[in-house]
């Protein structure tokens, strides 16, 4: 671009007026904010921290609102679906109520070949409520042992779980009804006919020579009439049999048939409350205690630290029992608040030690000395200089204290402290799940996962906080 402007056109008298002083330079200045506000703003710029914050908010939200959406009672025991893995819309056959099944009378059995092999028969359809077996007894043999296996037996040594020994009395019915923890799968039932061994004293073998035979039974889900009625399940006719839709358990059920999803949502209240509140308070206590001890030093430090040692060395379990008695927690009463208090009483010293050690170092730093010389008060010094310096360590301690406290709560429930059964908590769900870790791992995986997620979020948030507070970066 070429400019061909004459001087006369561009110059004007106004240009030679003196300038007024304008304050517009202030545009470069930020509003004065404190250190903590700056931290918060920096934190909000950290994507990991923000997403963690969101997840934690979600967790809290689910805890508060979830039970109104998923309204299953966490205490209701669905005994038809014990230790059920996650499933969707299962239906079940309606079967007879519990009663004593005597077996099939010998007289009603079809006559077969004498002394032939054992022939097993299933009466009715094998279902998760019962499997009814019968067989035609071998002449002269009255003792029969029943076994059950989940895999095909290879020989007489691998027939599986010994269920019962049956001794037949002449003219009676023959049969065995298995009700032991049946689930929807194939089972191999074996019946062994035991020949009477006359000379048991002299025989060395445990098992006399025996004939056995095995039958495969495909067990389907069943529910008793009474339970279907009780659970208010609507039945419908399918292929001439009454079936019902069983209650839905999207996350499966635990060892007593309770809905894991519902228990997780209800348990979150206790676990998050105890897991966050107790560490927050005792860490705050530890910071103050350690800060004072480290800052004052000398005799004060000596006395304060010996008291901290004293608290650390007390036998934890014994004092928890004592505190439980002292708080007068009766059966069935919620011990959550007393437990938080107890955890605080015994939990603070380890943090106090760390803070005290760091305070020792920091208070010797040149800038603290300078601040002190300028007349800074001890409280200001600790708050303004010491605290930001020990915060990273506090945050690490806090994020580790959360899972530790969640598990301590569960551990203490064994002395009757903490949540009241049947109310759940994440920690106690984990403990229950441990019992079934090998057979039905979902009972452990779900509660452990939510604890993991919560702890991960707190760690990321803590990390973000640490970075945001780092004035040097």
């Amino acid at each position, binding site marked *: 671009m070429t400019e061909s402007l004459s001087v006369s056109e561009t110059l004007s008298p106004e240009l030679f007026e003196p300038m007024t002083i304008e304050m517009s330079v202030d545009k470069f200045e930020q509003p004065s904010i404190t250190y903590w506000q700056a931290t918060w703003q920096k934190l909000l710029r950290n994507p990991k921290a923000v997403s963690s914050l969101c997840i934690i908010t979600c967790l809290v939200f689910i805890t508060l609102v979830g039970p109104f959406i998923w309204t299953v009672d966490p205490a209701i025991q669905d005994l038809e679906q014990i230790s059920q893995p996650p499933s969707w819309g299962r239906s079940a056959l309606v079967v007879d109520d519990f009663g004593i099944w005597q077996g099939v009378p010998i007289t009603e059995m079809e006559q077969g070949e004498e002394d032939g092999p054992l022939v097993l028969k299933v009466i009715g359809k094998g279902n998760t409520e019962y499997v009814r077996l019968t067989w035609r007894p071998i002449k002269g043999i009255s003792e029969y042992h029943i076994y059950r296996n989940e895999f095909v037996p290879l020989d007489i040594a691998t027939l599986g779980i010994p269920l019962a020994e049956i001794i037949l009395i002449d003219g009676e019915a023959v049969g065995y009804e298995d009700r032991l923890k049946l689930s929807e799968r194939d089972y191999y039932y074996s019946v062994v006919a035991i020949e009477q061994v006359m000379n048991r004293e002299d025989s060395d073998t445990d098992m006399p020579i025996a004939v056995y035979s095995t039958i495969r039974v495909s067990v389907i889900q069943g529910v008793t009439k009474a339970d279907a009625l009780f659970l208010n399940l609507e039945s419908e006719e399918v292929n001439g049999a009454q079936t019902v839709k069983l209650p839905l358990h999207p996350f499966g059920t635990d060892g007593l048939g309770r809905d894991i999803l519902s228990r997780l949502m209800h348990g979150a209240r206790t676990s998050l409350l105890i897991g966050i509140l107790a560490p927050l308070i005792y860490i705050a206590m530890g910071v103050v205690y350690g800060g004072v001890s480290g800052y004052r030093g000398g005799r004060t430090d*000596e006395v304060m630290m010996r008291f901290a*040692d004293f608290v650390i*060395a007390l*036998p934890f379990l*014994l004092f928890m029992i004592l505190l439980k008695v*002292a708080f007068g927690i009766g059966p069935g009463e919620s011990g959550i608040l007393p437990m938080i208090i107890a955890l605080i009483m015994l939990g603070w010293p380890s943090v106090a030690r760390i803070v005290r050690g*760091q305070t020792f170092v920091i208070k010797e730093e040149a800038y603290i000395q300078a601040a002190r010389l300028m007349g800074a008060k001890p409280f200001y010094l600790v708050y303004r200089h010491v605290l930001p310096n020990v915060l990273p360590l506090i945050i690490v301690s806090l994020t580790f204290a959360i899972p530790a406290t969640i598990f301590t709560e569960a551990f203490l429930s064994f002395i009757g402290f903490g949540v009241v059964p049947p109310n759940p908590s994440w920690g106690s769900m984990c403990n229950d799940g441990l019992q079934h870790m090998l057979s039905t791992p979902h009972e*452990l995986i779900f509660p452990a996962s939510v604890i993991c997620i919560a702890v991960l979020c707190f760690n990321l948030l803590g990390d973000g906080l640490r970075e945001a507070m780092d004035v040097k970066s």
Partner: protein
Amino acid sequence: MFKYLLKRLASGAITVWFIATATFWAMHSVPGDPLLNDKAVDPEIRKNLEESYGLDKPLWHQYGLFLGNMLQGDFGYSYTQRNRKVNDIIRDHFPVSALLGVIALLIAVSGGVVFGAITAVYKDRMPDHIIMVIVILTVSIPNFVFAALSQLGVLNLNEWLGNTFLPVAGWGSWQHIVLPAWVLGLGTLAYLTRLMRSSLLEEEGRGYTLTAHAKGLSRFRILYKHQLKNAILPVITVIGPTIAAITTGGFVVELVFSIPGLGRYYVQAVQQLDYTVIMGTTVFYGAFLVIMVVLVDIVYGFIDPRIRVGQ
């Protein structure tokens, strides 16, 4: 230094006395007593039992007797193991817990420092993320699961190798220590990793680090030569109480791996209200903790002369 040590030990002795007193009264305030058993006994037999154990005397009297015996280093006979002296129980089982604890702590500290350093150097990059996730898993899953899983792992390894590579449980050789020490140290390892990372990152912006960077030193050299010494302080602070915690808190591991450690006897004693064993082990651990704390304070001075004690 010598005078300082004496002073510390004197105040430590007072601390131990406080611990013993608090525990004594707590133990007697808790409902139940060591003589109760599954099968109830007649009041007359119970009286005999109380007399033979001196439990019929007033509590103050019992406390006095206990203090007198404690000064002579005698804690009496256990209630549950009726023929064994508490001193023998501590003598037999503490070395086991201590050995296990020290190995676990070595694993935890060396692992914690190394992983902490790695995560600090590779901050916000892949190694940091991976270690972070592992750390979180470690602390959010009950210790018991790791015990069971590592047993299963070893079992499969043994099966695959066709001979015993590592024992699944038991005690008696160094191979037996590997698995339980690993499980016991895991939690502390995770904690120290995070602590180390955090405290190393604190050193990142300091003047000496910048100078070192400016000198063109390699990242690991700066870390090893300069930062480590400053950043390790919090780690040392927690080690004192952690030694005590790891040797007492190992009872789950001791139970699962069938290890004759003192932690097991300690927890059992509380459940059984075995008065003499509770007192003996508590006093012993109290003294142990006090000594560890003194040691840590002295080590402090070596690492950071600014907080040299006794001056």
